[in-house]
């Protein structure tokens, strides 16, 4: 403190009154007045300026993180079965939890921006030069600590986003020569990601890093006060005191930062309000993805936006293998940081200072450019016109991408081939972006579903939210269907315009709302039964059922229309699906026709009609969960198609004593999903 305000009178005067007396007593024992005076009456050469506010804003942002972080800590539970769950509870069930978490999340991002501004101001003003070199280095260390906290905090919700981003980050740490694999294992807390990854990251995020940061911050501020504020030259105005002139500017800037943070959090609420939609506070502030699942791909994985430039930078080294990644993720950033540490020495020369400024601006501009490139690549499909590349798509489809065939198709013309390659590249970029956007949309749907499930009255089972998602027909059904059923069966609403094209490619019945009224009506429709949505593409296309529907059922002399309708509702009733308000009499009439050995019952076993099983599928409980589980488990069972099963595998029966393709639970999930039987939150 070589520059304490000489004019300010710091000798305490005896105060009057009880409060004054108390203050005197306290000052005698602590000397607090001198401390406050020391803190507030710092000379600001050339007067208060807006460009000095960034340091104070960073301290303010850090204090905000400490306050919100401590309270988040009071509700957070770091383990693989409770991290997502406790964050869900904070975000969706705790009063004000969404605001608390939102402030913590958005302020973390504001801190990164403030860091960049502070650094820029210090470098441009040359504030790093003698005698402030050490303080500049302390600042660079603080910057890394803040980035470290950002990186570790990202994992703590244990959602898909944080989980996969952390896997990438820790795998990159494993690229460090010699110690890499051990380093990675230490950070991860073992050979695999789990409880100890969370406890370690949490200890780093809430203990080690902030404690270290406070230590360095104290040093940083002490040195700042020791050398005084580095004034922007030339000084044109008279000096002022830190209090209240600079404090006012700092306070206004802090308030502005907080306003921006709140603005980011509340913007969706405002938008919903203007659109007249209800505001769901759980959707405000920080996102919470679906629970981390190492068994599910997560194509929407991206680091937080302030690390996007590194992510994009790594793409430069694509094709270089591990050494390229090492170069891009560790060597180049390391060298850049090393050079920044040398700035105070380089800056001793006038040209050196100019270099430093140019270098800092270039780094920031480069990072900005890389971020823009990353965003452009990801969201390209939003504005690119894919139809302009229809010819490329067609040619690729025709040739299967084979180089020689392509060359031949383009007449072996070098120029044409080069032009095609260029356009093919652009086409691939659109497709990549499309895939990313689909993944983002899916991730959002998965996240919403997980939150819906967690909000059930029964709450989350002790095994965690992932077990809920894994036993949810709506989440798992489409995945299992795509994997095991969709190679033959379609699953699409026949009313959709693209349905016809999908039916044409399928080689078995469309299972959309199987067993329901619409499905049953189509089955008994002479126009549809032999179509591709039913038996058309199967071995049963000329079977007895098809000829029965086309020949007999369509004959009003044999089957009155209300009789057909009765069978349709009886089938839906048998499947335990909605019957569209059909009367009990109609259902009973349909059931009678189903059992009648002159009607359906001549082939199908139903009720007590004594028709033998084996010739046609059992109509008892037709389309019900139990029936569906049965046919998926073993379609060659006596109840279904013991003689003429058409290609359908017995998913629940292991061959040669091995395990079956699908477990009982998985088959149940498929059946429940087909039947539309899953948890629906109230109000949906």
């Amino acid at each position, binding site marked *: 403190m070589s520059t304490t305000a000489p004019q300010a009178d710091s000798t305490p005067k005896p105060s009057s009154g009880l409060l004054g007396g108390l203050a005197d007593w306290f000052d005698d024992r602590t000397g607090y007045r001198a401390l406050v005076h020391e803190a507030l009456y710092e000379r600001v050469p050339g007067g208060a300026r807006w460009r000095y506010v960034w340091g104070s804003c960073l301290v303010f942002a850090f*204090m905000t993180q400490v306050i*919100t972080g401590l309270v988040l800590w009071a509700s957070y539970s770091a383990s693989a079965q409770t991290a997502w769950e406790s964050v869900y*509870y904070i975000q969706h069930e705790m009063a004000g939890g969404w*605001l608390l978490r939102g402030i913590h999340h958005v302020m973390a991002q504001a801190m990164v921006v403030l860091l960049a501004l502070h650094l820029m101001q210090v470098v441009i003003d040359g504030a790093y030069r003698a005698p402030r070199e050490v303080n500049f280095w302390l600042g660079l260390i603080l910057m890394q600590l803040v980035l470290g906290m950002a990186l570790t905090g990202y994992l703590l919700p244990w959602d898909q986003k944080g989980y996969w981003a952390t896997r990438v980050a820790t795998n990159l740490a494993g690229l460090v020569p010699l110690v890499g694999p051990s380093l990675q294992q230490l950070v991860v807390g073992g050979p695999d990601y789990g409880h100890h990854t969370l406890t370690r990251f949490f200890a780093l995020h809430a203990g080690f890093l902030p404690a270290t940061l406070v230590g360095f911050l104290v040093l940083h501020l002490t040195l700042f006060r020791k050398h005084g504020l580095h004034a922007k030259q030339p000084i044109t105005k008279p000096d002022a005191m830190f209090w209240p002139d600079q404090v006012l500017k700092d306070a206004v800037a802090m308030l502005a930062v907080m306003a921006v943070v709140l603005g980011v959090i509340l913007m969706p609420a405002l938008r919903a309000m203007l659109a007249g939609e209800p505001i769901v506070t759980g959707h405000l502030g920080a996102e919470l993805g679906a629970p981390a699942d190492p068994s599910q791909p997560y194509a929407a994985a991206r680091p937080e936006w302030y690390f996007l430039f590194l992510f994009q930078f790594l793409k430069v080294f694509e094709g270089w293998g591990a050494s390229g990644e090492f170069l891009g993720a560790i060597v180049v950033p390391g060298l850049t940081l090393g050079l920044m540490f040398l700035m105070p020495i380089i800056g001793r020369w006038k040209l050196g200072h100019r270099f430093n400024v140019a270098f800092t601006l270039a780094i920031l501009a480069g990072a900005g450019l890389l971020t823009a490139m990353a965003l452009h690549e990801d969201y390209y499909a939003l504005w690119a016109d894919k139809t302009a590349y229809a010819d490329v798509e067609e040619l690729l489809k025709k040739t299967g991408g084979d180089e020689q065939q392509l060359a031949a198709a383009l007449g072996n013309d070098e120029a044409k081939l080069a032009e095609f390659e260029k356009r093919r590249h652009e086409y691939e970029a659109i497709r990549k972006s499309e895939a990313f956007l689909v993944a983002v949309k899916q991730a959002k749907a998965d996240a919403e579903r997980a939150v819906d499930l967690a909000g059930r009255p029964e*709450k989350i089972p002790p095994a965690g939210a992932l077990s809920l998602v894994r036993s949810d027909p709506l989440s798992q059904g489409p995945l299992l269907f795509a994997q095991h059923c969709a190679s033959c069966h379609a699953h699409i609403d026949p009313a959709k315009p693209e349905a016809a094209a999908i039916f044409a490619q399928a080689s078995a019945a469309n299972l959309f709302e199987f067993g329901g009224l619409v499905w049953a009506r189509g089955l008994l429709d002479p126009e549809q039964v032999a179509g591709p949505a039913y038996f058309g593409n199967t071995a049963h296309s000329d079977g007895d059922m098809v000829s029965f529907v086309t020949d007999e059922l369509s004959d009003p002399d044999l089957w009155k229309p209300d009789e057909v309708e009765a069978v349709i509702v009886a089938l839906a009733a048998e499947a335990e699906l909605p019957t569209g308000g059909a009367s009990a009499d109609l259902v009973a009439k349909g059931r009678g026709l189903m059992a009648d050995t002159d009607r359906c019952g001549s082939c199908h076993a139903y009720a007590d009609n004594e028709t033998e099983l084996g010739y046609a599928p059992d109509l008892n409980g037709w389309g019900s969960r139990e029936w569906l589980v049965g046919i998926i488990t073993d379609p060659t069972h006596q109840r279904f198609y013991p003689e003429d099963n058409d290609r359908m595998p017995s998913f629940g029966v292991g061959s040669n004593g091995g395990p079956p393709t699908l477990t009982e639970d998985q088959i149940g999930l498929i059946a429940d999903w087909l039947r539309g039987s899953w948890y629906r939150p109230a109000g949906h």
Partner: protein
Amino acid sequence: MSEHTKADPATEGRRGFITKALAICCGGLATLTPVGAAIWAVLDPLRRTAGAGSFLRVADLANLPDDGQPRQFPVITDRVDAWTGYDAEPIGAVYVKREKGSDTVEALSATCPHAGCFVEMDKESKCFRCPCHNSAFTLDGGIVAPSPSPRPMDSLECQIDKSGSILVKWQNFYTGIEEKVARP
């Protein structure tokens, strides 16, 4: 600020006051935002209640001998702990006894009314004893003086349903006070 410059002290003093007031307001407002959010969230547990006491099945009347001897039964029910829902979990214990020839029962909560410890049955001395501060109670739940407990053991309402199950109204009471007051 008036002491640092030579401007008119009155104007300067007013300007200084406004600057200081504004600085405190802006800084205060900025700081109070996270503090407010933090307080809001910290107070969340006050919104939560245990729910009204409900009758839970603890045993079958047929399995409880009518010898006037209290027996300990776990109280089992579904339980929600913040985000986790547990199916059929023991959440506490009761002592239930049946007098000779009676087809009704009496139940006592195993929670000590003094400080909430688990009261054990001392079969040798034929009394209940709390291991924490040595409160002792008779087998009817009455205080054995001198005792740190301000009131007898808490009796719980009982019912016998049609199937012969003993149902006990499970409630927690405030401890350390003379009156028996159920927690909300």
